[in-house]
């Protein structure tokens, strides 16, 4: 799962035809919808922009393990426990594919993790919200994974080959996760009154943050145009957000749950669902670090990493020692 908003303030330099470093062949490849592969020449700005985006995506996967991981021990049936364990494990796997995709661009995972731990790279702000009830696991699957899929399916056609291919597999697993989330909510919604209330409460809390996963409105999204010119981003934030609302609004009826937006209505003229104004001040507060759990998520991550220092050192020490032994033998 992953949000679309680019949270960094340093823009990738836009390629412009009057720029002397502008690479005509490269841009011709992009314009021709070709794929860039790791050994191909590419402009530095393209490489840097991709590293930043793929790393942020990878970081989001591993931080995203926390809000759901906290329910593995408490899942209310063994079947749900097994499904959740497999899901959180999938997210670790997504992190691995994505770090590997970033490594094809000449960076290494340890360095990217260091950038996450020192706050130089970000992760999706959606994971700074808490998961106080079991219904949150359903709402994350249905809404957060649903938004992530909407964002990610176009990336399967992005200009950088390894990123596009990693995303094909990730999207398949994410759509499975979304169905599981829907099913959790459906069961709760049609269960006891207490379970129904729990499901409605979770959806009420996750709806707006999910819409914010698509990032700021198009006229306030400075990096989007560059990303689109590079063939990394295919649709604008607002286009993707609309696609998500159009998919999700009818599903809420099937769930028997309402969405917390009195202005939400189907517009027969446009064929789209209209929705109310999004309060982005909240998103920007969370990005700045003032969300409910920013500090806790980072503390958990750095703590796990530091507690594992001696383990990683031991693995390196063992490998070095045995490489020597084998060389002697």
């Amino acid at each position: 799962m992953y949000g679309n908003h680019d949270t960094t303030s340093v823009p990738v330099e836009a390629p412009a035809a009057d720029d002397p470093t502008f690479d005509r062949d490269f841009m011709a490849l992009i314009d021709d919808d070709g794929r860039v592969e790791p050994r191909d020449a590419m402009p530095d700005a393209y490489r840097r922009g991709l590293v930043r985006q793929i790393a942020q995506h990878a970081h989001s996967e591993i931080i995203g393990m926390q809000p759901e991981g906290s329910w593995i021990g408490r899942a209310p049936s063994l079947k749900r426990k097994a499904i959740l364990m497999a899901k959180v494990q999938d997210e670790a796997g997504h992190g691995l594919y994505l770090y590997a995709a970033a490594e094809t661009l000449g960076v290494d995972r340890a360095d990217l993790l260091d950038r996450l731990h020192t706050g130089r790279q970000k992760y999706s702000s959606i994971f700074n919200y808490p998961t106080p009830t079991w219904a949150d696991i359903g709402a994350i699957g249905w809404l957060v994974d649903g938004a992530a899929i909407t964002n990610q399916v176009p990336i399967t056609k992005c200009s950088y080959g390894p990123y596009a291919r990693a995303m094909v597999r990730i999207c398949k697993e994410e759509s499975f996760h979304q169905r599981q989330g829907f099913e959790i909510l459906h069961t709760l919604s049609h269960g006891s009154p207490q379970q129904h209330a729990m499901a409605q409460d979770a959806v009420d809390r996750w709806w707006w943050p999910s819409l914010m996963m698509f990032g700021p409105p198009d006229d306030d999204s400075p990096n989007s145009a560059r990303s689109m010119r590079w063939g990394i981003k295919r649709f604008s934030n607002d286009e993707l957000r609309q696609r998500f609302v159009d998919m999700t609004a009818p599903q809420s009826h099937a769930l028997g749950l309402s969405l917390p937006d009195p202005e939400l209505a189907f517009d027969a003229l446009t064929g789209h669902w209209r929705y109310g104004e999004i309060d982005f001040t909240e998103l920007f507060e969370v990005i700045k670090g003032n969300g409910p759990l920013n500090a806790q998520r980072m503390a958990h991550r750095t703590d796990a990493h530091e507690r594992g220092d001696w383990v990683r050192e031991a693995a390196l020490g063992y490998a070095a020692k045995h490489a020597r032994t084998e060389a002697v033998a």
Partner: protein
Amino acid sequence: MNTPGQGRAGDVAIYALGLGDDALVLAQRMGEWIASAPELEEDVALGNIGLDLLGQARALLTYAGSADGRTEDDLAYLRGADEFCNVLLVERPDDGDFAHCVARLLVFSAYQAELYARLASSGDETLSAVAAKAVKEVAYHRDHATQWALRLGDGTEESHRRMQAGLDAVWPYVDELFAADELEPGLPGVAVDPAELREPTVAYVSGVVGRATLAVPDVPAAPGGGRAGRHTDALVSMLAEMQGLARAMPGVTW
């Protein structure tokens, strides 16, 4: 203690319940590592092992419950600690210490590998089928624990010290794995005699410990009694977390 049924069917059920509880409780411990492991690969690997154990637990609890009409969830969520029949080794917390986690997995997977290899030819068709599937899974768990025991034991000074401490912490609970089972003599050809598992299990673990430049701990055995429902506070705390929501809303579907 449980009385899932009378006579032979009841005895088989209690036997299955003990093995199922072992797997369930260790699966719960493995789940604690997901999102907290030293490397991303370990989040995946420990999650995998936890999922395998949970799968074994579900098959065994479902079978145990079939003797008296209880479901896997009735057994997992609605029994108190004194009704659980797992060995104490699996309930001991590792406190986020990876060496402790590896030491426990090494001992337990070596034991399970021997157990399931024999149980696969049990005269009870269900136990035999569960064991035949599980024996392949457990071979991987044992290999994973072995590789880490070697790396930690023969890695750095610090990892050597920690791995030895991990072994020392789990060793008092090894004896209980092989304690005489009061049910087993009544289930010839169905259950496995735990005493039979001691020699091959200890030989395997000792072999790894030696290759890892570690020492087999010389520590007294802790009191056992897990199969009879005598547990440590660690299980009580674990169940409070695991069962909390299910018990707060009894009778609903999740």
